[in-house]
């Protein structure tokens, strides 16, 4: 039964992805054509269209009026289905972001309407502030080191966990645990562990490595590395989830065929698995870069108020909160938010233009064939 069923399922999934790619090709080819004007034989897009084209012998006029009515019904359906999401999204995401850009032009303390228009002065101040340069540098280090530390580790763990073995699912759950628990829990627990009289130094002492003990959080030379280790520990699980999901999408048939041809395990991973994981890797790297640029919670919870001046782990987001809301300069804080947003946007656009380009549109739906 096995080979037969496997083949059937494989063929079925192939026909599904062929279907999907045909679908996206058809749709992109004729984006603006009205539903009723479709030639017979082309795959119809909606149920209502099928009813229309499915009955031959009707007059052209009749069909036109019916299609106007159908268009109207379709518009109503679209409004009904997208409307609620759009309203919530505009009110709580787009509007506040636009307002942040607006407030950034004022010397505004957060009370009443902003009146003290100062043009680009906030931005000049930001770009000249050495504390901001420091935060930007930290963000850069975090972006690069997160990719370097988490990527290869997550890939190896995902390959490991993708092997058929006993206890697989429990091992997976355990590796995801740090990703699932909240930043506050991680921050509270780790700051107790990592203080100079904490558990880590105690442990090092106990196993005879006392000379390695350090003030992990307060020593400015050590703190950024502590942060990187914490980030790796916390977000490795997410990378592993993504890679595992990508690995599940690779048909067993490919690796089985390579095995029959005599390829070794590592040859299979290097020549088949890794290339096929390309899109997943690029999406993960994108999410990781954006997350690193916008890092806030963990730094703020673990290092609190003294982050900017002494600890050496400030990020653009903690700079924003410290110099904006916490200092009462709401206008300034919003200008920092705009800078942070613009930097993320530029990085994202460059990344999409040069890295994600081969994955765009069809790749998400076509599946690998």
């Amino acid at each position, binding site marked *: 039964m096995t080979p037969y069923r496997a083949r059937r*399922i494989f063929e079925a*999934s192939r026909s*599904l992805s062929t*279907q999907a790619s045909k*679908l996206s090709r058809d*749709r992109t080819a004729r984006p603006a054509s009205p539903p009723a004007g479709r030639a017979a034989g082309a*795959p*119809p897009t909606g*149920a*209502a269209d*099928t009813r229309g084209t499915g009955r031959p012998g009707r007059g052209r006029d009749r069909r036109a009026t019916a299609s106007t009515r159908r268009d109207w019904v379709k518009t109503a*359906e*679209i409004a009904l289905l*997208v409307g609620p*999401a759009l309203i*919530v*999204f505009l*009110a*709580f*995401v*787009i509007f506040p*972001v636009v*307002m942040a850009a607006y407030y950034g032009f004022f010397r505004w303390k957060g009370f009443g309407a902003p009146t003290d228009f100062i043009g680009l002065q906030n931005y000049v101040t930001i770009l000249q502030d050495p504390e901001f340069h420091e935060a930007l540098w930290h963000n850069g280090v975090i972006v690069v080191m997160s990719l370097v530390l988490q990527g290869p580790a997550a890939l190896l763990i995902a390959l490991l966990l993708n*092997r*058929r*073995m*006993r206890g697989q699912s429990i091992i997976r*759950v*355990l*590796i*995801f645990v740090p990703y*699932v*628990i*909240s930043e*506050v*829990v991680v921050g*509270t*627990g780790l700051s*107790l562990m990592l203080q100079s009289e904490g558990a*880590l130094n*105690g*442990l090092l*002492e106990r196993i005879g490595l006392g000379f390695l003990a350090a003030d992990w959080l307060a020593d400015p030379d050590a703190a950024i590395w502590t942060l990187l280790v914490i980030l790796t*520990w916390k977000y490795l699980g997410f990378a592993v*989830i993504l890679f595992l999901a*990508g690995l*599940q*999408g690779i048909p*067993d048939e490919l690796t089985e065929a390579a095995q029959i041809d005599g390829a070794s395990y590592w040859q299979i991973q290097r020549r088949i698995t890794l290339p096929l994981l390309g*899109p*997943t890797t690029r999406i993960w790297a994108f999410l990781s870069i*954006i997350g690193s640029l*916008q890092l806030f919670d963990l730094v703020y919870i673990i290092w609190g108020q003294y982050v900017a001046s002494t600890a050496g782990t400030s990020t653009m987001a903690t700079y*924003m*909160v410290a110099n904006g809301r916490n200092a009462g300069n709401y206008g300034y*804080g919003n200008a920092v938010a*705009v800078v*942070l*947003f613009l930097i993320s946007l530029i990085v994202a656009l460059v990344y999409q233009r040069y890295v994600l380009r081969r994955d765009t549109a069809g790749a998400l*739906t076509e599946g690998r064939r």
Partner: protein
Amino acid sequence: MSALPASAPRLAGRSRRERMPWGNPIVYFVALVVIALMLAPIAYIIAGGFRTNAQITEDPSGLPAPWVPENYLNVLTSGTFWTEVGNSAIAAVVTTVGVVALGLMAGYVLARYRFRARGFLYALFAAGLMFPMTVAITPLYLVVRQIGLMNSPAGVILPQIAFALPTTIIILVPFLKAIPDELEEAAAIDGTGRLGFFWRMVLPLSLPGVITVGILAFIASWNSYLLPLFVLSHESTYTLPLGVQAFASQYSVDTAKVLAFTSLSMIPALVFFSVFERRIVGGLTGAVKG
């Protein structure tokens, strides 16, 4: 036909059942080392709650000797903890339901309707990925205050739904696109309209994706910190993350008690995640493969 979108997870599940070898001991060894590294800090937090402050000061890295359950019992019998669990649960459940409902409806339109503004709408929602809540938090706080939702669960829930929509829609659209047109045609021949098709076919067929985004939304809400920090200022409305922080600063000298409170606050998300772990991997498969 209807089992098609589920074929990949089924394939994996089937072969797992059929041939489950013990495999290479080195693989187990590496897995154990990784797990130990991942779990050590959590074990420290949990075990620390079973110690006394004297034990912790004397030997910061030791095991509880003897094990003292008082800290946990104190937290579990305090009203504060359960109020905060309740607040977090309400916020997380309503956020999840809202995200899934709104995301599925909008994703369905973006995946399967042809209309002029479609590309623009998709780009608009996708652009939401670029807007972290951090960027918008001050104006967001002003909006929430303006419409009178300060210190109310709705003040946390509505923005959370809004900020979860981009991810939700991006994960769900491929699922909804992959539903074969033939099904829709067959439904039409049977006299089912587009909305009927949505209820009877789309909902069940996109279930793996729906569960994935639901879990992600639930965990994100359960763990969210920044938004509640701005919106909730009465202690009676605190969610667990705020509660943990308030507790940690209130009992800053009572390390053991803080550790007990912290351990208990992570249990629900852990249970929820471990129940649905396989679904997350299965659901993301549709979204990230390319």
